[in-house]
């Protein structure tokens, strides 16, 4: 690229490429894309369009039985915006997402640093234990945690009760919204920390020992090495991991549903996913359910934009 004078073989190569190009214009790539595009249009595209249209319609119980659905403009969205239930759900979801994602990131970072600070055997022990937690299917993990937090025979209450001065016998974690979401947060953090820890650890191993040693010889303290060398080098990993966590912690339908099975189904235990499910499957109000769904999708796209952009940039480089 840097030389402007092309040698003879280079010129020949360029000519080759020019000849080759039209051949690559054949519709082959489009043919190869057809199956994927078709399945995506069926499974995602059509529902997305239907949902967008329905969110502007009155689509309740009578429409389920064949009545035409009248267009009502932004009425669904307006009634959501003035609905205190919806605001409660949105605020709870966003707070839950942010708190859980940041706790996950913090613990994941600490564990990644811890992995670099210990010997090989200890590190492997920690990694295997994290892997097992990571591999647990969500539903199975939920049943175990519900058992751990069981009010009468749960180990958590038993162990907490052993602490002198703490009276936790028969404490019902899932019957109060605050402790309910605390339990949900603990479970989600437990499931997601392994991914963060492994990703950040992979990033940390990329930081060369020579550079760190050189900095140490030049008198940089451990804190200075962390903040001026290690952090800048692993910042991209942290940014992406945090974004993925934020998105994943917005979609915790399975966890919340299972906890509601064991606790209470009241409205103050809802996050966005279960709220949509209740609107759609429970009240059969597909217009409102669609409007909330559109809101969730827009929120996701807004959060994931940075991630998508960075992946695209990398794609161009390769």
């Amino acid at each position, binding site marked *: 690229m840097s030389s402007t004078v092309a040698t003879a073989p280079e010129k020949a190569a360029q000519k080759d490429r020019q000849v080759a190009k039209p051949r690559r214009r054949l519709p082959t*790539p*489009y043919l*190869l*894309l057809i*199956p994927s595009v078709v*399945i*995506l249009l069926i499974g*995602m595209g059509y*529902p997305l369009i*239907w949902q967008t249209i*329905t969110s502007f319609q009155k689509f309740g119980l009578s429409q389920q039985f064949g009545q035409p659905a009248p267009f009502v403009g932004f009425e669904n969205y307006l009634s959501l915006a003035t609905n205190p239930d919806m605001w409660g759900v949105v605020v709870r979801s966003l707070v839950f997402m942010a708190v859980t994602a940041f706790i996950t990131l913090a613990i994941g970072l600490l*564990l990644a640093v*811890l992995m670099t*600070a210990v010997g090989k055997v200890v*590190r492997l*022990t*920690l990694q*295997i*234990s994290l892997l*097992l*937690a*990571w*591999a*647990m*299917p*969500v539903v*199975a993990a939920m*049943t*175990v945690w*519900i*058992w751990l937090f069981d009010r009468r025979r749960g*180990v958590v209450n*038993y162990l907490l009760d052993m602490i002198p001065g703490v009276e936790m016998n028969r404490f019902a974690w899932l019957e109060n919204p605050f402790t309910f979401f605390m339990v949900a947060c603990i479970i989600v953090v*437990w499931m997601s920390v392994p*991914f963060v820890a492994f*990703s950040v650890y992979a990033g940390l191993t*990329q930081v*060369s020992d*020579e550079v760190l040693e050189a900095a*140490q*010889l030049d008198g940089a303290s451990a804190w200075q090495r962390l903040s001026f060398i290690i952090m800048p080098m692993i910042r991209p*990993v942290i*940014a992406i*991991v945090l974004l993925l966590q934020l*998105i994943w912690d*917005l979609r915790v339908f*399975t966890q919340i*549903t299972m906890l509601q099975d*064991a606790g209470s189904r009241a409205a103050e235990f809802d996050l*966005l996913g279960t709220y949509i*499910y209740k609107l*759609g*499957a429970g009240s059969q109000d597909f217009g409102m359910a669609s409007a909330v*769904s559109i809101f969730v999708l827009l929120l996701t796209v807004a959060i*994931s934009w940075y*991630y*998508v952009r960075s*992946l695209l940039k*990398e*794609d161009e480089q390769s």
Partner: protein
Amino acid sequence: MTTATTPNQTQLLTTGQTGRAARARTRRPLRVSRVIYSALAIVIALGWVFPVYWMINSSLLPNRTLQSFIPTFFPVNGSLNNYANTLADGTFFSALGISLSVTLIAVFFCLLFAFLAAVAISRFRFKGRKSFVLAVLIVQMLPAEGLFIAQYKMVASVGLLNSVIGLSVIYTAAVVPFTIWMLRGFVAGIPADLEEAAMVDGLSRTQAFLRITFPLLAPGLVASGVFAFLQAWNEFTVALVLLPAEAMQTLPLWLRGFIQASATRETDWGQVMAASTLVAVPVIIFFLIVQGRMTSGLVSGAVKG
């Protein structure tokens, strides 16, 4: 890398004395802290794996033992009775069958479609390529919670609720984007020159692809396939909406139904944990196979900087 090490080494040579002294000074406190860190790491490892251990431990204990107020931490007098009771009514096997058929159909089509698309976007430059890649990336982020009402409506309107086909179609669509993205990396990692060399040696383009590129891609296909398998196998949200009938349940739905049915009486935690173990163990084994690739797939590029 080389530019970083060279001045470094010269510096070490010239300041060898002070360097050694500095290292000697840091060595002693390092040892002590290392022991503390190791102990901390072991404690965290034990704490983190405890729920998994507790699942297996409880699954081996009789319900009478679990009913006691003092937990039993080791399954000394354990038995497999809970497993036998869990499997007795046969619902596990019918759920297993449904899970297997839905997942295998979805994985097969997902791999096939994603493979073709991955070849298209990594081997060809064409108009609309960038928009396609962008669409794939965005669709991959969309949560099931944001679409399941519409998917329910669509599947119901063609009469495919409670059917393997309806769920498989949605699963294929949901998993195809990430699989395309993952396979794209593998296809791009195989130099096109190899194929071209084979074509110079007289193979047709298709032959070159089948004989040269495809075998090299096998590990990538396996990894992506296992990943797609795990996603479909563990999925709960869409299955809950699209399979409302009790006779049609995938394993995650079955496990949830199991704990729900059990909760109406006194919950039989031994059986619930045995059921959870049955669902979890195969997944854990599969997961351990592909784990390394998953981390690198999700944050690829970020590490390189």
